[in-house]
């Protein structure tokens, strides 16, 4: 698992590479904690993540909670089938925002098109 944080716009973007899975969960947590600790909008770029599992999704969800709790914008750059597939497999996808999301705020789990089996 490799990661780096780059400033972008009103906040920062965390670029993740490798596997967002249980063996790398501690590193992923560190990376996410780092961007949450920074100020401004939070953007997580998972486009280069090859693998997600429940531990990885939990960490992203938790980071999302933390950001929303701090009234910060949380955005995910996924644009890849791997992430969507993991989200649908784990049942994290929502039609409306998740529990943490206030009102009409965009939620990382709102994915309308299910990946093809």
């Amino acid at each position, binding site marked *: 698992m490799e990661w780096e944080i780059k400033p972008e716009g009103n906040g920062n973007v965390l670029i993740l590479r490798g596997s967002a899975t249980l063996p790398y969960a501690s590193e992923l947590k560190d990376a996410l904690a780092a961007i949450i600790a920074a100020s401004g909008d939070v953007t997580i770029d998972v486009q280069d993540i090859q693998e997600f599992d429940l531990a990885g999704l*939990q960490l992203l969800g938790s980071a999302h909670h933390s950001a929303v709790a701090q009234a910060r914008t949380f955005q995910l750059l996924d644009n890849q089938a791997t992430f969507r597939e993991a989200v649908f*497999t784990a049942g994290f996808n*929502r039609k409306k925002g998740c529990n943490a999301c206030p009102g009409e705020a965009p939620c990382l789990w709102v994915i309308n098109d299910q990946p093809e089996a």
Partner: protein
Amino acid sequence: MMQNDQRAAFREEAYELLGELETSLLELEEQPENMDLIGRVFRAMHTIKGSGSMFGFTEVSRFTHEVETVYDMVRNGALSVSPQLVSLSLAARDMIKELLDADLDDGNVDQQRVQELIDGFRAYLKSDSSPAKDEVVASSSANLPKNETLPRVYRIHFQPAADIFLTGTNPLGLLNELRELGDCHVIARTEQLPCLDELEPEKCYVGWDIILTTERSVDEIRDVFIFVEDDSKLSITLIEDGSVEAEEGGGSYKMLGELLVERGDLDKETLQRFLDGRKKIGELLMDAGLVKPGRIEAALKEQEQVRKVREKRQPATPASNENQSSLRVPADKLDKLVDLVGELVTVQSRLSQTAAVRQDAELTAIAEEVERLTEELRDNTLNIRMLPIGSTFSKFKRLVRDLSQDLGKQVEMTTSGAETELDKTVLEKLNDPLVHIIRNSIDHGIETPDVRRAAGKPEGGTVHLSAEHSGDSVLLTIRDDGKGLDANAIRAKAVEKGLISETDTLSTSELYQLIFAPGFSTAKTISSVSGRGVGMDVVKKAIETLRGSIEIDSAPGLGTLLKIKIPLTLAIIESLLVRIGDAHFVLPLALVEECVELTAADVAAAHGRHLANVRGQLIPYIPLRQRFAIDGDVPAIQQVVVTQVDQQQIGFVVDHVIGEHQTVIKSLGRMYKDVSGISGATILGDGSVALILDAYELLHSSAAEEARQCAIKVA
């Protein structure tokens, strides 16, 4: 008129449902957690209530409603099944029957008893019979049927242990396994997910609501979780199984609010408060933060799946009914049909005979064609009247249950061959003898639990009923594992009653047969159950009236076995046609073993005794010419029809054996009901009458006569 027909049809259907209900309740007593049985009981009550109300059986409907209410709660897991509920339900079943009977006979029903039962059910609703939530879930999942092919919708909640990752289990793998079982919708519960600083990455914080539509059983679903179930919270609830509401309610399902309450996501009061709003209930509740969006989505998904399943099933229901295309026909119409077929068989026989006499090839061809069709029609008509014996068996389960409770014994009734079919009339007439035999088995055969324990037997006794086809008969066996017959007691009683003398030497088997003698009983006390000394002889007579036979065997300490052989039908039988002088007689072919010649020399060699030497074996015979006082010359060579009656070989001497004959049985009428040795009559092809020989009666009256002659000689 139409209304009357409909009411009669409802009554008939209700009686049928009550029969099934009794069976289901008795099974439920043994398997109180079987959701399939609970569903069956509920549906029976629901149908009786609904249809009863429709056809004006208000009292039936009102009463049944009380029972249905309880079973609805049992079905939903709010109440559990207890022996008390089963007893109450059986009493309610009897009461519904009574209410139906009263409507038919314009009779009265004990209203106090009705109210007592209603109060009983209402009290049960308030009783503390609610199982703990976990138990409900476990019970609802424990015994669902496996091989049902209709899709069912399950609501699964799975909350893995927090340390599931450490055990090497991937929860997502389990979800994928579930997906292989059917249409699966997974909604994660993420409310427990903490903020990042509190999160331990190796712990699992997520649970799932899963709506699974599958044909698989709950056990097969549970198997997916077999390695994690102990440490996880798992509930599997069947929410759609093709119940009556599903069929009647079209594709609809519970409203979202109702569903959320049922799923435990919302309380009723809050729901009521929000139902007045104009917005959709889901949105309102989410806006108010009362229900998490994930829960709303899970409930909506459940609603959607159940609707889909029900909509799919809707068009299938009428079609499948059409395919079954069964008709409900009053029994008397069937009886009339059988009578007509009987007449047709007689006319056909006459036609065949006429064709044979005239030697007209064209007529013979027509006669053969008519014969073929008549046989086919006869077989089909008799088949229509065939009913599986299982319905009679299930009545006995209730009898066994009630009797064993009354007598403080533990008795289980097992059955086999319930699918064996018998003519409706035979089945009806078999009921009373079987009831008596079973009563005897339980009252005199099966010991009390302490006696059984002392004898090294299991405390609970067994009465096993079986039925199987045996040629053109059905063999019924009733076996118990009680104390068996006491040969010494039977002997002593027989001597006391004058049935045998003290010096008579009888085999054990012959001693056992004495229990069928009139007035015989070895019971020391007379109970309400059996033992009035009018039992087994009546049973034997009833079986013989059915042209059947009964045998008994017993092993002391191990139990008793009764074998009853009954012809499949009473209407038309295969028989052997014989002639004595100008008179024709028929003997049921099932009894006949062989026919042998009897010459004047054979008679002389027996020195006046009625014994035929058949391949070195002496077989007693009854000369029917003599028995029926028929005048005329005896042919030089007579025929002995050797039969097997009451476990013994007996010959009937006739002038000629004509051959096999299809006998349409006609009763002799009241005037001749006391004629001994004849059980009925049949019409032959030439229009003449042949009498049906009652082999049992002939044997017994002959034996009695012989005994009388001996007594006279001794005197």
